[in-house]
């Protein structure tokens, strides 16, 4: 397993920090009641999106799910497009038709996120199938959660992906909860990735809160796809910090065992990476500059997004068909 260089690690940290600060800014402003759509924040899970997407070109494609801000941003999706979408403005990446749970930025190769559990998994495989038929050499990545693995359509997709040796990387973000239902009430006590292996995929698991580990696993998986080895499956363990949907914490509800969230916060992907960077000689000053740059970008992006215009009501009937 090859570890990232200091420069690479700095870049990974920057992208994770950017996603964290964007999600925090959304959470802060959510209370203003102007972002009027269900919003699933990915705070605590940033390392997976960043570690995977670091190996993708713009021409490679990403599909995602309801908790998709991190994937969208890590793939290079427009920040203003995201924020304007949350506000329901015409300048949103989907013109306000999607909101937080339906994102797309084709310029960045982020094809789509949708919120039906498992909904984008076969679509991503079909996209990969077309890339294979066309011989484009592009890789398709689909992000989904542990709950998604319970859906039949995911197993249908695993079967077909293996059958056709599709250029597809399936990334299972195992955060142990489907909404508030723990994994042990939904699946037997076994790992997820060996089932993907039984379907015929190359499958492995790793620590989704260690960006250098995600980065290394993704490098191997994506290189294997590019070399024609067929679909790869990564089960990456992580944890969501905020409530399932919305801007707040919800540890008071008691569905997580006492101390679980606190333990995962100690395993914060950002804090871990910051520690590694300091060992590599990155200084407080370097990190402060990074924070400042990100803060300015976010403030500017909100300002631009908030100057958006309301979509014309008549446009509601557009695009039912091409």
């Amino acid at each position: 397993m090859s570890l990232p260089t200091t420069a690479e690690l700095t870049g990974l940290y920057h992208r994770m920090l950017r996603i964290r600060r964007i999600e925090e800014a959304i959470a802060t402003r959510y209370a203003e009641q102007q972002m009027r759509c269900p919003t699933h924040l990915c705070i605590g899970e940033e390392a997976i999106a960043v570690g995977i997407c670091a190996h993708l070109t713009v021409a490679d494609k990403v599909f995602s799910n309801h908790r998709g801000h991190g994937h969208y941003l890590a793939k290079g999706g427009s920040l203003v497009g995201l924020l304007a979408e949350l506000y329901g403005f015409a300048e949103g990446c989907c013109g306000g038709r999607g909101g937080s749970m339906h994102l797309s930025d084709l310029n960045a190769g982020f094809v789509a996120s949708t919120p039906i559990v498992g909904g984008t998994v076969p679509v991503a495989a079909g996209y990969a199938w077309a890339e294979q038929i066309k011989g484009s050499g592009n890789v398709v990545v689909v992000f989904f959660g542990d709950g998604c693995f319970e859906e039949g359509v995911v197993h249908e997709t695993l079967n077909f992906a293996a059958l056709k040796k599709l250029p597809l990387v399936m990334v299972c973000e195992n955060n142990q909860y489907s909404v508030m239902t723990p994994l042990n009430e939904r699946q037997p006590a076994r790992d997820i990735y060996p089932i993907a292996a039984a379907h015929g995929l190359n499958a492995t698991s790793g620590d989704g809160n260690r960006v250098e580990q995600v980065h290394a696993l993704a490098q191997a998986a994506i290189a294997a796809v590019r070399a024609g080895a067929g679909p790869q499956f990564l089960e990456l363990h992580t944890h969501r910090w905020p409530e399932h949907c919305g801007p707040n914490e919800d540890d008071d509800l008691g569905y997580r065992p006492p101390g679980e969230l606190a333990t995962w916060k100690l395993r914060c992907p950002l804090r871990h990476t910051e520690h590694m960077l300091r060992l590599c000689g990155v200084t407080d000053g370097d990190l402060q500059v990074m924070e400042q740059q990100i803060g300015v970008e976010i403030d500017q992006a909100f300002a631009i997004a908030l100057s958006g215009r309301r979509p014309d009501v008549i446009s509601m009937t557009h695009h039912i068909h091409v």
Partner: protein
Amino acid sequence: MSDVMTLSYGAAIREALDDALARHPDMLVIGEGVPDPKTIFSTTQGLRETYGAGRVQDMPLAENGMTGICIGAALAGMRPVLVHQRIDFALLAMDQMVNNAAKWCYMFNGQQKVPLVVRVIIGRGWGQGPQHSQSLQAMFAQVPGLKVVMPTTAGDAYHFMLNAIADDNPVLFVEHRWLHHITGEVDKRQPAAGVTGAARLRQGNAITIAAFSHITIEALKAATVLAEHGIEADVVDMRCLTPLDVETVANSVAQTGHLLVADCAPEMASIGHLLISRLYQRQPTLLKQAPRLVAYPNHPVPTSHFLANDYYPGAEHLAAAILEILDRRPLITSVCRSLQSTLARDQPDRYFVGPF
């Protein structure tokens, strides 16, 4: 080969797929049994031999997953034609058809498109029973974004299929199994009456019969016998559920003043009801008498032919309804007697010996 030929409906679909595969290099045909020895009632016969296993494919028994996969392929520029031998099987794919295919263009603000054709076969007979002969097309028509077409004639089957494949939107192509063997003229140069909306198959001034798919054939039979009694029916083949062509029906009713709608689906929430409702809301004064709807009963189809025989309305039911609307009840007995089929109603023609 001539541009004008006489083909069965099934052969016309095969011909359209063949011509479309030649025309669209990105087109795929995929479905359970597509390249098998029976080739979807011969509608995909020879296609794999001509266009190769990469473009004409069998598939895993995974209707929902494969629908999603075809949607993804369509997003990436392919033109898949996905085939279900029974519409009943497409129920497994409702999530992908309704949540993804139908909405993708809309929810991503017109930036992406899904040029997907889903062929589904509805139908009846020979004991297909509760789970192999449903007529669920109205369920799909209810979903904004899905186009639902159900041509009746061989010529329309050819042109509607070509049109569906060239369409950049998802199209549900509904084929009644009993239409597959009926022959008609296919003029490749141009469709007889366009490739959208309804078509008048017969002119008449006594009553309008607006019919969907196979029951249009029954309507034509009824019209022929009624004409012997001086009752000339105007027969409109609806051809599309979406868009529903109320205008053509209204134009006909403006001349006839009477309407019978014949739907090949259960009565409950049928498109036939919608047609009557829209027509009445549009021009309530057009009708001289209350319109009638003849449709299937609101219970599942039994397998036993002793039972299924009475499930399906035929030409005699349509004729009886027309004679009631026109207050010509004394004719019902003789007209219906001459319309009664000598075949069992689970058998499309005397050459049909099962099992499908």
